[in-house]
C-alpha cells in the first residue's frame, strides 16, 4: 500500500477546500459563493494566548477576532505586549493558546499561515545596504511569488521612481511606504503593522492614514499597534493592552462612551463682557470643567448633551464668533483607562 504524506501544497489545497465547504454550508440561499458573509470565519482569531519570558508574563489570556476587511487597533504604552502579540501571530515565539490566520493554525503550519500575512516592521527594519528594487525582489523570493509583483507594488506606493536608491537613502515616510509595498507582495489578506507612525512627521502620518483608507477599501484586514494618536478613527475595533492584559476592547465609540469620556468645546465670543454669561449658560446646560483662556472658552461636554448645548448657544442672545467641537479620541484617552485599571 502506498501512503501519500501531505506536502505543504497538498495541505494548502485541503485548507482551501475546507474553507470553501465552511462557506458553502454557512451561506444563505441565493448568496454568491465568496461574497462577504457575516458567517465567514474571521481572518484572524486569537484565543486565550499567554506568553511568558521566564517569569515575566508578557501576554495573559488574550483573545480577539478580526473580521475580513476590518481594522483592529492595539493600543498600549511601551512594554504593554503589543509587539509580542504580533510575534505570536507570526509564530516567531512560543506561546500557549491558539491563533489561526484565515483558518490556518499558526502552530500547525506556520508557513501556510504566513502566506496570508503581510508584516510592516517597527522602526523600518529593512536591509539598508540594498536597493529598493532588490529588496522588493527579495520579498518576492521569500514569498515565492512572481518577480513582476516587485514593480507592481512599488508603483502602487509611488516608489518605483526611487527603485535604484539604497534603502538607507530613503526618508522615513518613504521607508514606511516601502514597508507597505513589501508587505503587500503576495497579496496577503491580513496586514500586521507594528508602530507604523512612530517615526514619521505629521505629513507622513496623514499620507499613511490615506494609504490605510485605500487598503481598507480594497478589502484588506489590518491589525495595527501604536502608542500614538492618529489611527483611532480608522479602526473598527480597539484593544487596549497594559502589562500584557486586555483592559478594554470594543468599537472606539462604545469604548469611549463606557469610559465616560467627553468631547471638548472651544468657542470665542464677540464681546469680552459676554464671556461670563456664556460660561454660566454652559454650566447650566451640564458642561463641566468650563474655563476661559484669553478670548477662548473651553468646556468638557458629554456626548449626550452636545447637540442641544450647541443649538442653545447659537440661539442665545450672546454673539458667538467662533465655535469648535473636538471629538475625543480613543488613542488620547486610553491612558486614563490604564491609570484607572492600575489604581484598581
Amino acid at each position, binding site marked *: 500500500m502506498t501512503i501519500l504524506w501531505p506536502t505543504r501544497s497538498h495541505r494548502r489545497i485541503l485548507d482551501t477546500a475546507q474553507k470553501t465547504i465552511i462557506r458553502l454550508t454557512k451561506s444563505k440561499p441565493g448568496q454568491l459563493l465568496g461574497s462577504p458573509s457575516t458567517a465567514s470565519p474571521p481572518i484572524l482569531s486569537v484565543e486565550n494566548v499567554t506568553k511568558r519570558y521566564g517569569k515575566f508574563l508578557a501576554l495573559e489570556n488574550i483573545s480577539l477576532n478580526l473580521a475580513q476587511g476590518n481594522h483592529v487597533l492595539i493600543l498600549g504604552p511601551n512594554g504593554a505586549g503589543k509587539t509580542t502579540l504580533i*510575534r505570536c501571530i507570526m509564530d516567531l515565539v512560543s506561546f500557549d493558546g491558539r491563533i489561526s490566520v484565515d483558518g490556518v493554525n499558526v502552530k500547525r503550519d506556520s508557513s*501556510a499561515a*504566513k502566506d496570508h500575512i503581510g*508584516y510592516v516592521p517597527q522602526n523600518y527594519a529593512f*536591509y539598508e*545596504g540594498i536597493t529598493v528594487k532588490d529588496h522588493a525582489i527579495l520579498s518576492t523570493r*521569500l*514569498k515565492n511569488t512572481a518577480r513582476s509583483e516587485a514593480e507592481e507594488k512599488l508603483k502602487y506606493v509611488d516608489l518605483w521612481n526611487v527603485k535604484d536608491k539604497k534603502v538607507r537613502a530613503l526618508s522615513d515616510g518613504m521607508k514606511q511606504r516601502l514597508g507597505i509595498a513589501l508587505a503587500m507582495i503576495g497579496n496577503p489578506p491580513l496586514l500586521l503593522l507594528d508602530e507604523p507612525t512612530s517615526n514619521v512627521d505629521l505629513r507622513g502620518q496623514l499620507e499613511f492614514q490615506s494609504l490605510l483608507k485605500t487598503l481598507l477599501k480594497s478589502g484588506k484586514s489590518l491589525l495595527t499597534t501604536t502608542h500614538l494618536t492618529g489611527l483611532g478613527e480608522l479602526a473598527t475595533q480597539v484593544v487596549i493592552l497594559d502589562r500584557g492584559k486586555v483592559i478594554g476592547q470594543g468599537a472606539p465609540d462604545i469604548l469611549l462612551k463606557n469610559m465616560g469620556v467627553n468631547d471638548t468645546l472651544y468657542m470665542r465670543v464677540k464681546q469680552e463682557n459676554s464671556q461670563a454669561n456664556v460660561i454660566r449658560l454652559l454650566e447650566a446646560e451640564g458642561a463641566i470643567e468650563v474655563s476661559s483662556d484669553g478670548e477662548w472658552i473651553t468646556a468638557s461636554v458629554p456626548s449626550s448633551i452636545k447637540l442641544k448645548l450647541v443649538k442653545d448657544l447659537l440661539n442665545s442672545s450672546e454673539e458667538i464668533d467662533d465655535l469648535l467641537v473636538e471629538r475625543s479620541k480613543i488613542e488620547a484617552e486610553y491612558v486614563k483607562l490604564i491609570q484607572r485599571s492600575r489604581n484598581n
Partner: protein
Amino acid sequence: MNLSGVWGVLSLTFKESIRAKWLILFTIVFFLLAIDIPDLVELQGHILPANYLENFLTVLVGFSLPIIPLLALPMSSTSIVDEKESGTLQYILSNPISKTEFFLGRTAGLLISTSLAVIIGFGAAAVVSYTTNLSAYSGMGVLILFSVMLNISMLALGFIISDLSKRKVTALVVALFTWLLFTALSNVTNLAIILNLEFGELAAVSLVLIDPIELAIILTTILLGEPDTAWSSLGLIAYDYFQKNTVLALSAAFVAWIAIAFAIGFIIFKRQDLS
C-alpha cells in the same frame, strides 16, 4: 520546502558578504600569504633552490591555517545576532519561510562566499607560483581542502556564538577569544608534552580532537608527505596513538566536529524565541 525563499536568503547573504569588503580583503591576504613575494624574487635571482615553492607549502600550512578562522568566525558569529538586533530577522521570518529554511540559506551563503575567498586566494597564488608545474598543484589542493574544512567548522562554531549572544559586539569579542584559544591550544607544544607525560597519550590526543585548527594542520602536513621532523608535537603524539589509521581517525573527528557544531547551532536557533 520554500526553495525560492532559501535562494533569496542565500543570495542576500552572499551579496552582503561581498559588500562588506571583508571577504575581498581576506582573498587578497590569502593570495599574498600563499604567493610569498620575497621568495619569488629570490627564486628569480636563483638564490633559492628551484623546488623551493613546493617545500614552502609546509611553512604555509603553519601560518595560513590559523588565520582561516579569522575570516569565518567574525562573519558567522555576527550573522544571526546582527539580524536580531536590527529586526531584519523578524522581517525575514514574517514571510512564509521557516527557521530551517533561513538557516539553510544563511549557511549556504556564508559557506560559498568564505570558501570562495580561500579557493580564489590560494588558487590564484598557485597559478602564479607553479604556472605549468602541474604536480605541484596537488599539494596546494590538499591545503585548500583542509582550509575549506576548517572554514566550515568555524562557520558552524560562529553560528553557536551568534545564537547565544545578545549583542553583535559581544559575539565578535567571543569569536575573537575563541580563535585565540584554538590558536593557543594549537601552538602550545609544552602543553601537549605535559599532558602526554602526566595523563597519557589519550589526554594529548583529546587536545587534537577538540581543536579543528590542529586537526587541519596535522592532516595537511601528513597528506603533503612531509617528514616527521616537520610535524608538531601533537601531530607526533596523535600518529603514535592512531598509527596507520591517523588520517582516517582525524578526518572522521574533523567531520564529526563540523556535524556536531552545525547541529548544535541549528537546534539552538530553531528553539530560540525571537525577542
